[in-house]
């Protein structure tokens, strides 16, 4: 059983009571809501005659259903309009802050909470969205919940939870130039599989992780859930504090110093005990691309789609399903596979450093003929920062569309979607069948720079071939951003 880890410390601090059924009642420090998974929770609250216990600990935004071309109200889609109107009504009725369209603070919920300094080390963070694991980048224990649990947090600022085991994923060594945090997490999931994390929290540690920027750590923790782990986290350190300082909701003055002391004390100590540990060598990781229908079906860009014989027997049935669905040939290279659509954005890779990395590839090049390529900033703040440094102009000049913030084509709850058998190069997080809005649409997951490379070449391409040869000597765009 784990002991002395950040997870253990935060769990202990937030314990409210032991429940008759055997679960622990856990206090939730930050509750984030959006338009998709909250309306039924508010309805249930009304049915039970309950109010919102701590409206100041819940923060709302709208992201899944917003169009990314025109965000004028009312939306063309009446269902989308009804969902946002319902959220607005619920927030107004219960005194919950809503960062709405045009507020300057709207965006994907997992992009805006860190941006605003809402997410802080040592908090428990819950949201009706599985990618809530993103907030673990700050040394928070953050996890996705369902709508009935959203109701419970609204009613009681707490949840009935069972404690997880803790697996430390230690990564050592330097990532190669052109290899991003996205490649790192796709590689980890490839090696451990999509089920290995069930029942575990993942602690990401080691020299490679410590060298990552906050935005890279967010990409990493975001996809812990794709490896089955409901939450993933990184111990807070100087990088975390530097990111937080000066953000709207961060402590200031003398309180800042006290906060930093407390945050430091939460990190897993040298004496910490883990239920399990795995170790990776960062230097061995290549730009990684998925070829199948689960995020674990990934390979280095210069590898071949594995044949059934190369896979473990229990992986073969889903591989066979993937060959049929994706129409990719086992044993053939993934590089050179033509794409139709290139999507840069999402809670995984829609932050400023992601857009910089993609723009560095797009700059001075042109989107290949016949390819639809578009960039969706993760938030209004990301959009403004990117525009201030001219990234929108770089993308437009290269033939990319520059859109308004939202979840966009990650999940097809808005007008952005694949058509028919289209195949996308996507910086999002899920390559499930039908995920991007067409029941037969196909998704190749990769880093934003790799998506940009696919866009300008028209097919899956090793981004390292497009980067200047001197790139190895300079910091990656991602690690230099703050």
């Amino acid at each position, binding site marked *: 059983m784990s002991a002395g880890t950040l997870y253990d410390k935060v769990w202990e601090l937030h314990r409210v009571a032991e429940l008759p059924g055997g679960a622990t009642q856990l*206090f939730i420090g930050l509750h984030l809501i959006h338009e998709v998974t909250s309306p039924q929770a508010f309805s249930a609250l009304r049915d039970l005659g309950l109010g919102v216990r701590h409206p100041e600990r819940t923060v709302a935004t709208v992201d899944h259903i917003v169009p990314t071309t025109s965000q004028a109200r009312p939306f063309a889609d009446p*269902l989308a309009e009804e969902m946002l109107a319902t959220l607005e009504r619920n927030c107004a009725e219960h005194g919950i802050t809503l960062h709405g369209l045009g507020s300057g603070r709207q965006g994907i919920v997992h992009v805006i909470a860190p941006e605003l300094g809402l997410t802080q080390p040592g908090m428990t963070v819950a949201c009706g969205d599985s990618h809530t694991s993103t907030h673990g980048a700050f040394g928070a224990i953050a996890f996705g919940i369902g709508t009935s649990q959203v*109701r419970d947090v609204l009613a009681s600022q707490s949840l009935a939870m069972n404690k997880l085991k803790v697996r430390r994923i230690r990564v050592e060594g330097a990532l190669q130039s052109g290899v991003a945090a996205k490649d790192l997490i796709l590689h980890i999931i490839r090696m451990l599989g*999509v089920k290995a994390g069930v029942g575990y929290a993942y602690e990401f540690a080691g020299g490679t992780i410590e060298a990552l920027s906050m935005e890279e750590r967010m990409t990493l923790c975001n996809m812990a859930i794709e490896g089955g782990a409901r939450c993933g986290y990184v111990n807070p350190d100087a990088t975390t504090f530097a990111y937080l300082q000066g953000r709207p909701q961060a402590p200031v003055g003398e309180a800042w110093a006290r906060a930093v002391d407390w945050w430091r004390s939460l990190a897993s100590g040298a004496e910490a005990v883990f239920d399990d540990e795995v170790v990776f060598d960062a230097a061995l990781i290549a730009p990684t691309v998925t070829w199948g229908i689960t995020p674990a079906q990934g390979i280095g860009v210069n590898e071949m789609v594995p044949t059934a014989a190369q896979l473990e027997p229990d992986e073969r049935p889903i591989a066979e399903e993937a060959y049929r669905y994706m129409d990719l040939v086992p044993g053939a290279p993934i590089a050179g596979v033509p794409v139709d659509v290139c999507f840069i954005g999402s809670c995984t890779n829609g932050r400023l450093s992601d857009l910089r990395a993609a723009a560095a590839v797009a700059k001075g090049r042109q989107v290949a003929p016949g390819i639809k390529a578009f960039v969706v900033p993760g938030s209004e703040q990301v959009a403004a920062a990117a525009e201030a440094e001219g990234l929108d102009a770089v993308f437009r000049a290269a033939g990319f569309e520059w859109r308004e913030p939202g979840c966009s084509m990650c999940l097809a709850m808005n007008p952005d979607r694949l058509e028919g058998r289209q195949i996308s190069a996507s910086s999002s997080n*899920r390559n499930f069948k039908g995920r991007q809005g067409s029941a037969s649409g196909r998704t190749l997951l990769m880093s934003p720079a790799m998506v940009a490379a696919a866009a300008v070449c028209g097919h899956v391409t090793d981004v390292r071939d497009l980067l200047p040869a001197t790139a190895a000597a300079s910091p990656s765009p991602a690690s230099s951003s703050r």
Partner: protein
Amino acid sequence: MSSPVQPGAASPAPFPSGPIPSCRGRAVAVVGDDIDTDRIIPARFLKCVSFEALAAGAFADDRRELQGDHPFDRPQHQGAAILLVNRNFGCGSSREHAPQALMRWGIRALIGESFSEIFFGNCLVMGIPCLTASHADALALQQAISTDPAAEVVLELEALEVRLLGSAESPGERRWSLSLAQGPHRMLVSGQWDGTSQLVAHDEALRRTASRLPYLSEFGAGSS
């Protein structure tokens, strides 16, 4: 949880309430590992402010692809109450719409090799047990249902076993043991799976916990 079953829904069984000692009915198998919640209910069905009409969305794209041959469309499985699955069922998105769609289609319990954590938790809070069987037992159970889809299945939650009652075609009863973590087991059997009232009842303890959290008591947002 108490809204009436939708007109046209396959099962007349009421939604779960109170203690769940057992579950009885026919079974339907949806075979395969890593069946994610986007497949259980595609995202376009999430554009709603109520769960009521979700039954039609259950496995919608898979059903369309199979043109009537999906287990949820086969006549012999209409009205089934127990869903048999394999490994990592319900992975991916946290959408409660997935178990809500299954429940509104008629499912009252699942038996599988393993479940994603969020899906399991969503089912638990709805009073839908997700029980685990060994690989061999899960396959045997699926095989038995494929041979005799009309067989009556009795899931004894207290005893953690599933019985397949004999029929004219296959006389003799067969049984398999199941597993379920102690906490959820106790919650379902005792009827304490819908815990909002318990959580709300501990308000004094909640205040004490909040008062010892430095980010609330010492350096709250923007404070100095």
